């Protein structure tokens, strides 16, 4: 097991390094620089800023300094939020997005799995169409339309729930629902497909031949095997959800990390973009690693034994 972990670590380090290098040079190919804002900076001042931040040096030299700092754990300072280190910004905003993401998964996964199971068990009947319809509606309607509607109905019209901001549990209800709808939709479909797949396996017939009741068969045999493809998709799904959604966070003005992914690129805030890319990369690699272990627990055939 240890040898496997070591191998995985080495591969992940190389992956992150390749990711950082690829993003670094891709960014540098873009025209413009982070100092130009709507306030329109004079070119001679822009030159001074470029030299102050060392952006006038050849790309490769900048790359070496950046990588050097990175090894010491210093991701540099954001250009847009002057003098605020990228790491502080991430540490300040990520917990909020993660919190919102976890809640949406906490609702999305159980409901999604439930709908998927019902759709599969009742294949072809009314319940199947109903579950699939609900899930597909979730995917077809853009989330900012859903969000605006929820906000309009529960916030403005009835005043039941706060319209925006992130101050407590009642504030989190609407954004969580908006976010979880997408998870529910995709999960229902995957679960339904995977449950149908398992239903035709031979060991299901064996279980039936043992005289087990439908409930026991579904619980002990079908669900666990049907979870395997769900778990494989868990890594990327959790990672992207926890990285926040620009649209939902803007609509409910939640100070999450979601908006930074978009704004940093649009403002060409190099250090911020690289910091976020690497942070997301590490997070995704870790999530995939955990999923592989989880995968081993669920499916003994994959278990890594030394």
């Amino acid at each position, binding site marked *: 097991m240890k040898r496997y972990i070591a191998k995985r670590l080495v591969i992940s380090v190389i992956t992150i390094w*390749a990711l950082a290098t690829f993003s670094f040079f891709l960014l540098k190919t873009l025209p413009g620089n982070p100092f130009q804002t709507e306030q329109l900076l004079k070119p001679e001042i822009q030159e001074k800023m470029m030299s102050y931040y060392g952006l006038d040096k050849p790309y490769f030299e900048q790359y070496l300094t950046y990588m050097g700092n990175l090894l010491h754990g210093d991701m540099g300072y954001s250009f847009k939020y002057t003098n605020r280190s990228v790491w502080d910004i991430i540490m300040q905003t990520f917990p909020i997005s993660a919190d919102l993401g976890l809640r949406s998964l906490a609702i999305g996964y159980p409901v999604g799995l439930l709908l998927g199971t019902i759709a599969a068990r009742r294949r072809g009947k009314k319940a199947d169409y109903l579950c699939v319809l609900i899930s597909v509606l979730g995917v077809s*309607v853009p989330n900012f339309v859903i969000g605006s509607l929820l906000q309009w109905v529960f916030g403005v019209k009835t005043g039941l729930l706060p319209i925006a901001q992130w101050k407590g549990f009642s504030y989190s209800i609407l954004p969580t629902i908006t976010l979880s709808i997408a998870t529910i939709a995709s999960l229902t479909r995957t679960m339904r497909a995977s449950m149908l797949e398992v239903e035709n396996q031979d060991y299901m017939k064996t279980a039936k031949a043992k005289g087990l009741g439908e409930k026991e068969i579904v619980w002990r045999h079908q669900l666990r095997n049907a979870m395997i493809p769900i778990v494989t998709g868990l890594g990327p799904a959790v990672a992207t959800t926890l990285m926040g959604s620009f649209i939902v966070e803007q609509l409910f003005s939640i100070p999450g990390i979601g908006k930074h992914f978009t704004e940093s690129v649009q403002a060409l805030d190099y250090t911020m973009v690289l910091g976020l890319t690497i942070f997301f990369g590490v997070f995704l690699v870790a999530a995939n690693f955990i999923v592989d272990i989880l995968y081993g627990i669920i499916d003994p055939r994959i278990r890594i034994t030394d």
Partner: protein
Amino acid sequence: MQKKQVELDLSDFTRLLDEEKNGEEIVRPSTSFWRDFARRLFTNKAAVVSLTVVAIMVVLSIVIPLVSPYQYDANNLMSINQGPSASHWFGTDTLGRDLWTRVWYGGRISLAIGFFGAIFPALIGVVIGGIAGYFGGVIDMLIMRVIDVLMCVPQMVFVILLMLKFGNGPVAIVTSFALIGWMGSARNVRGLVLQMKNQDFVNASRILGASHLRLIFKHLIPNTLGIVVVGMTMSVPSAIFYEATLSILGLGIKSPLTSWGQLLQLGVQNFKLYAYQLFIPAVILSITLLAFNILGDRVRDALDPKLRN
């Protein structure tokens, strides 16, 4: 229940001649895989409904802008923000442009992006996945690592970088979608090819001297088409959705073209006053995506050999 006894007489007991024997030819119609798939798809109620909806959307998108009295980008500052009326069935937007024409013109772009957005990633994915799966070893490891790296780049960052490079014409949007979409189908195809490559029918043709390319493209990939087709029908909605999200972020389709995403983005800005500007495109987009999603599900069911009863 005793079957009606057939009276037999002595003459019946004479030996049959060969040609009389094989009077029985196989009765069940022999159908090719695709015809069988097509029939199973069309007998399914939901599939037919969603197919017709998609067909209607496509036809309307093509026909209406040609036939409509209004140009999709002709401003009319006199009649701004008018609700749906006799002259303007879907009303007018902030610049007084006829929404009925714009919705269907936008449909053209969105559907085109949807179709090509589904085909390109699948094509790239199938080819790269097939090669990775078939050759295995170093090539497979390399390709998989490259995919890992590309997967790690946050989608939004990657998308905006591509948009900045290629601009935001429809072609650029489709290419950028393809560049972030192919990894998924590549992985699926690779998995399938890995499973299939040491099955007998592959060994058989290898023994008969089939070249690597022939093996991959003639034998292995056609067998993955089932999964790939399902993937495609699923990725049409996400391609359309992707363009809508881009528009929200201000990276949408280049003016003066428009798309459903653009219309939604403009509609959301003042949906409190002119709700129709948001809800009409939103409803049409949702119906189309709904149709595609349901179609995707039914295609998956129709393709699944085990569900063939």
